[in-house]
Each structure stands twice: as structure tokens, then as C-alpha cells.
């Protein structure tokens, strides 16, 4: 469980070039957008790509991201129940 969350934090830092952040800086319940990590709309698209590449999850409707990319915990829960790899 926690390994997936750590893996997600690491992937997000690398994929989204958050060079000034470390895994320890991101709480599992931090908002990924807005006042939390401050991700933007392009980051949201990168997260959709990340889900497909790393976990075989294909989001056909980008609006689904609003419910999934709330926090590391929410992302991990979604991945655990939908992953195909």
C-alpha cells in the first residue's frame, strides 16, 4: 500500500520535473493542484499519460482526472482498483 504511494510520489517528481521537491515534501493527503503541489493543466495530462504507461489505466474522459488526481491517496486507491499491470 505505502510502496505504491511512495512510487507515485517518485514518479510525479520525475515526470513533472518537480526538481525542488522530495518524496518527504509530499503528504499523502496534500492537494495535487491549487494550493498543494500547484500542478497545472499540462501536468494533469502528464498524469493521464503516467496512469496509462505505468499502470495500464486508460482514461477516455479527461474529466475523470478531477476525481482521481485529488491527492496521492486518491490516486493510489484508484490505481489499486483499476490497474491492469
Amino acid at each position, binding site marked *: 500500500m505505502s510502496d505504491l504511494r511512495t512510487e507515485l510520489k517518485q514518479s510525479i517528481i520525475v515526470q513533472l*520535473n*518537480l*526538481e*525542488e521537491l522530495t518524496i518527504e515534501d509530499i503528504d499523502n493527503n496534500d492537494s495535487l493542484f491549487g494550493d498543494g503541489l500547484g500542478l497545472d493543466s*499540462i*501536468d494533469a*495530462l*502528464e498524469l493521464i*499519460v503516467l496512469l496509462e504507461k505505468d499502470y495500464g489505466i486508460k482514461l477516455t474522459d479527461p474529466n475523470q482526472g478531477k476525481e482521481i488526481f485529488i491527492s496521492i491517496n486518491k490516486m493510489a486507491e484508484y490505481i489499486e482498483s483499476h490497474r491492469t499491470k
Partner: protein
Amino acid sequence: MDIARKHFITNSIRIKNGKIFLNKETILSLDPKIDFSQFLKDAYKQLALKYPKYHKMDSLCKLGVLGSTILLRDQDFTENTALVFSNASSSHDIDIKHKQSMESIVSPAVFVYTLPNIVLGEISIKHKLQSENVFFIEDQFNADLLVDYSETLLKSGKASSVVCGWIELKNDQYDVLLCLVSNNGEIPFTREKLEELYRFDNE
């Protein structure tokens, strides 16, 4: 319209071969053999840019934001400062990266940088500019074009000052000259002076 008003090169920055010069003074000198991406990271740290979005940009935008931030640091400029940029290779390096990514799943964060004028947008966001901007693709550094276009903007009142220059990047080889042109300074804003600044450390 004030046709008689003289304009000056208030400030200039040169980035080439691991070095950054501000008004011909060396402000950063790194090993020219270091990897280009490492040069961009080291320059960011050593010149204290403090702008996390920098890390998300493609290399052309990093060069532009790096150069413009140092150029405009401690300078009196308004949101009406125009950007007149040029290069020969357009967005070559990120275009190649995008082409390579098409072999698997395309990265949106790469795709959005596949135009040279994105650097103008990134600089405008960083420095809160709401001004005229243009990006010319030329075979080589063309001082006449930069002076003519910038002077037109200044004399017509469409810009209070201009950042103009050359921002070339191809296969990690970079060559940048940016100048802040305004009513202040001692170096006349002419083709000859612009070429002289470009030739500096470019022999």
C-alpha cells in the same frame, strides 16, 4: 510619436560556451564541457533564479528565462516591455524530442514547447509583461532586423522598452544575446553596437 527620441542598449547578456556575461562582465563561468542540461541547472542555482516552473520548461525556454531574468534584474521596466527575438533553428531540439516520443505515448509537457515563440510566453509570465512580441527565424544573427523592428515599436509608442536579441539552440549548442533597449543608457541602439555585442566572445 517621437521620432527624434534616441534609444540605448541599457543592458546586455551573453550566454555561450558555459559562460554568462552581463554587460561583458563574466557573472558565471562553468566548465564548457559539462552537459548542457547540467549547465542550465547549475546556472539556475548559482544565479538564484528561484522559479520552480523553470524545471518544467524545454531548454530554449530555460535559456530565455535565465537570460531575461538576469538582464532585467534590478532594472526599471514596465509591463509594456516588448520582446523581439530571433534564431536560426526555431524549436529544433524539443521538436526532435517530440518526434522521438511519438514512438510511444506522446508527452503533453513536451508537445506544448514545440514552437519557438513559447519562450516569449514564458518570459512574459515570469516578468508579468503584457506587451508586443515577435519571434523571427533567420539564417544568422541579423542586427538590422532587430534594430528596425524594435525601433518601430518604440517610436510608435507600442512599447516603452524592448528586450531583443538572438536565442539559438541546436543539438545542445547554445548562443544567446539579449539586450534591454530603453531611453536609459550610454550605448546607442544601433546595428553596429548590436553586432559588436554579438561578436563579443564569439570570434
